């Protein structure tokens, strides 16, 4: 069964009167339960593809089926999709509100989805990503880069997503901290039975984490790599 099915997906950017294709009739299938990697050099379209799958970029053409539901271009996600698809960004410093405590950041997704929240739930989420519950009252600038990325992962997990999208989640981190976050992703993937799509320019990170991967180039998938082909 497929978690993601993309047919002839195109994204165009227009500016200065010129039109540029970021994605060109791209086809992709991601199986339920796998960790799928997207790699390629800067500008190949890998982050744009992820942002379409997250519902952040809605200006596309083609067919996108996510968790057995057909997406419509230019439409926001509705219903369960808003909880079931979550995203973690490269720089948690930019994605966590600087004036909100960690507790508030973690409660926000529950509040906006009308789910009962509690301090106990926040503490449980922090423990799951191996952070001390005492960090709940701190602000993002009081945490290290690795701790902030754990908070961003904890926030994405608050809504028990089925599909977790990760955009270069470890490229801003030290190697030893990257190792901790990669270990954590492998653990939560099992405990939450999620499908993961990971964008990275680092073939070592993809090779360590992913069951399959695609190499992108100029808005298309150039090559699909099975596990045995990863080096």
């Amino acid at each position, binding site marked *: 069964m497929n978690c993601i099915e993309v047919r002839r997906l195109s994204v165009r950017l227009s500016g200065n009167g010129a039109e540029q294709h970021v994605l060109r009739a791209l086809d992709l299938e991601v199986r339920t339960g796998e960790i799928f990697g997207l790699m390629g*050099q800067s500008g190949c379209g890998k982050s744009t593809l992820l942002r379409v799958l997250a519902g952040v970029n809605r200006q596309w053409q083609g067919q996108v089926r996510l968790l057995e539901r057909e997406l419509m271009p230019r439409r926001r996600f509705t219903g369960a999709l808003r909880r079931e698809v979550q995203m973690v960004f490269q720089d948690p410093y930019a994605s966590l509100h600087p004036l909100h405590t960690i507790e508030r950041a973690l409660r926000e997704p529950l509040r906006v989805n009308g789910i009962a929240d509690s301090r106990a739930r926040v503490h449980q989420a922090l423990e799951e990503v191996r952070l001390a519950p005492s960090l709940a009252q701190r602000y993002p600038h009081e945490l*290290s880069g690795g701790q902030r990325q754990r908070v961003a992962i904890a926030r994405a997990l608050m809504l028990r997503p089925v599909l977790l999208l990760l955009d270069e989640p470890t490229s801003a981190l*030290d*190697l030893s901290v990257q*190792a901790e976050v990669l270990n954590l992703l*492998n653990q939560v993937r099992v405990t939450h039975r999620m499908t993961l799509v990971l964008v990275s320019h680092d073939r*070592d990170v993809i090779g360590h*984490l992913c069951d399959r991967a695609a190499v992108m180039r100029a808005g298309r998938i150039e090559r699909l790599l099975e596990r045995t082909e*990863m080096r």
Partner: protein
Amino acid sequence: MSDDALLAVRGLSIRVRAGRELKTVVDSISFAMGSERVALVGESGSGKSVTARALLGLLRKPLEAQAERMQFAGRDLRTLSSAQWSRLRGSGLALVVQDPRHALNPVLRVGHQLEESLRIHQRLAAAERRRRIAEMLDAVGLSARRVQDLYPHQLSGGMGQRVMLAMMLINGPRLLIADEPTSALDAQLRDQVLELMSTLVADRRMGLLLISHDLPQVARYCDRVLVMYRGRIVDESAASQLAHSRHPYTRTLWACRPSAATYGTELPVLADWSEAVSAGASP
């Protein structure tokens, strides 16, 4: 520590003043190097970058450095005036930083910037300057004809780092300090730039102090490695012997890098070692 060392540092401490408190970020480190390639490796907060800045006389308040000895090619760096520093930087010691697009002047063409650094340090006829610029750009794998009329924003990351390298080497310094020179580049480009830097430095019989957080990567391009942790040099090893280091911190840095070969395994992390440190069990 021999007297003919290119760079000799003894008891270098760097502190930062925050209000009434004085926090030590580098704690009395000592090392010496000749015309060889040495990696200074550590993670965020280890003090490696401020060490580089201290060696170039670039520390600014609230940071202050103190050393029993800090000598470059026989000169005492501790007593240089700012005019002497300006002459030494570029011609004796040069620095390559992480992102060339921040270090190059955005409104000057590449050729102009290279020429400027030649003018500052040497008196040469215009034709000779042009010849040297073309030669230097060629040495870093760029075509002078194609590159010298470009502005920094027109360069790709890899090209920018090559231009930066050309600019730093054009006056023939004896020691190149490179602070994370490849972290802003795509993975494929990193090896190319490190390879180039390492080769150029060896060909010119210069010293290279390569600062990085990525131990396995820089080890391939250096002769010796110094490992920093929380302001101290905790381990020192020949690059070829790193895989056999007995120091727990070095071992983790060496092994925590992911790859296709580590798929399905848990990567080693620092937790045990840093807990040991905070408990006061280690140095």
